[in-house]
């Protein structure tokens, strides 16, 4: 419960704070929910599908100018990461430069109704940090090399290769300019923590309304027990690992003797 409350607090304190002035209530508002707001990592966990669905609430008739678009983002907990660059020295490949990124989400997916660059204008993107490079740039910290750009590009490229950063054009469907639904696939190699969902209502390249909801991803059962033990009682955990190894070694030797006797 405390975690959940904290998540809401963090979620509400993040980039939305960039909005200035007391906003007038937008003419169109998002009402949304998630098919699940917690994901359990069990031993046989191999990813999870989350449906993010909702409706547009209006006081006025549907505007007829530009079609309505919806963007949904899901981001994982931010962790520090170091990006290193190799160069050839004395004939072998050696790490030479590095950039420490103080915190980058370990998972980030953007789902849209239509290609992102066609529905969102760049100013709004940098304000709300929606596209992958914008979202990552927000997290980049101080560096020791002159040109950071290749390093942050490499971070995005490497994570995209592992399907951890993703742009899903057309993964959001809108019906009757009112109901929307996004299917987001969370990969199997998730880490534990609070994931944030953001929904943006976009019309004419501008963000009309936003909506946030947290998803709690946590280990359960044996996974949780082992993880907690390893972190909180490392000595007991270490001895347990050794005991298992010794027991297996003894068992193998005993079984082998049995086989030999026959």
């Amino acid at each position, binding site marked *: 419960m405390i975690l959940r409350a904290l998540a809401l607090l963090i979620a509400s304190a993040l980039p939305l704070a960039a909005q200035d002035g007391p906003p007038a209530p937008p003419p169109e508002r998002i009402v949304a929910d998630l098919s699940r707001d917690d994901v359990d990592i069990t031993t046989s*966990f191999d990813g999870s599908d989350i449906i993010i669905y909702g409706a547009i609430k209006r006081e006025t008739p549907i505007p007829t100018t530009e079609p309505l678009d919806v963007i949904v983002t899901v981001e994982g907990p931010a962790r520090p990461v170091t990006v290193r660059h190799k160069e*050839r020295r004395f004939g*072998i490949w050696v790490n030479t430069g590095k950039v*420490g990124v103080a915190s980058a989400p370990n998972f980030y997916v953007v789902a849209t109704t239509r290609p992102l660059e066609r529905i969102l204008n760049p100013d709004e993107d940098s304000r709300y940090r929606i596209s992958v490079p914008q979202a990552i740039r927000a997290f980049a910290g101080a560096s020791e090399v002159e040109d950071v750009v290749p390093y942050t590009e490499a971070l995005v490229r490497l994570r995209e290769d592992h399907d951890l950063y993703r742009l899903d054009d057309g993964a959001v469907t809108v019906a009757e300019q009112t109901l929307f639904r996004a299917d987001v696939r969370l990969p199997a190699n998730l880490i534990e923590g609070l994931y944030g969902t953001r929904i943006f209502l976009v019309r004419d390249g501008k963000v009309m309304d936003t909506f946030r909801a947290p998803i709690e991803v946590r280990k359960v059962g044996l996974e949780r027990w082992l993880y907690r033990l390893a972190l909180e009682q*490392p000595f007991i955990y270490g001895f347990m690992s050794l005991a298992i*190894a010794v027991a297996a*070694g003894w068992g193998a030797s005993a079984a082998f003797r049995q*086989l030999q006797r026959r």
Partner: protein
Amino acid sequence: MQIYLPIAEVVVNAFTLVGLGGVVGLMSGLFGVGGGFLITPLLFFIGIPPAIAVATGANQVVASSFSGVLAHLKRKTVDFRMGWVLLAGGLVGSSFGVILFNKLQRLGQVDLVVQLCYVVFLGLIGAMMLQESLRALHRSRKSGPIKPMRRNQHGWVHRWPLKVKFRASGLYISAIPVLMVGAAVGVLGALMGVGGGFIMVPAMIYLLGMPTKVVIGTSLFQITFLSAYTTLMHAVSSNTVDVMLAVLLIVGGVVGAQFGTTLGAKLRAEQLRILLALLVLAVCGKLALDLFLKPDDLYSLTPGVVG
């Protein structure tokens, strides 16, 4: 069957891990080596984070070497005094190795140093073994049984002070070179995530002049304790031991080792050593290629901000 590893936080196929453990167990049953030098690079290859591969590899070595040492205890081929002195040196070396490992990690050069260590040591030992076993095979074809290698009875290691009687080995030598061998293997073990048997065994035979019949048992005895210490240190200082991963590897390893031992009894010793030498050289060649060929991506990610 996919399985989520709680500490590594990655999903892997359980059968792949059991199979991997099995192949390495087969090698260790066949050749009498711990297999750490194979399992750690193989874990890197299937996407286990390096720090976890090194620590969990050490845990797996405990199981395989303990199983081996029990067999040698039955045959009374363990020199306990020698084992304890080697272990004392090993603990110092291993502690120093872990400090060195952390320092290199901060500099970002740990992968390079580990790979260079592997290439140099595997290359040297593989080449030596291949040469020796080819010669032995050649000799045995020419004229009956092979003469045992003559031990260097009065080398430099016998003139140093602090002499200790190692009864099971039939040696009366200084403890200093024994401690030095233990410490050197400890450093390399901590750096490379291996038990160090493949370095320890030749050092015991050629440097200390121990009789071959007690070498394997004594080496396994000290490796069991040394890798237990390394595992515990990794578990406490960096929480990098994944017990789920270790159990899957051990299950495979235990079964593989039994098959390996049965298979080993059917092959000739010289042929076995040629196979092991070729295997060692193959691993060495693969790692050397990685150093010299241009990597697929010049950039790489490491969790955490260092230095």
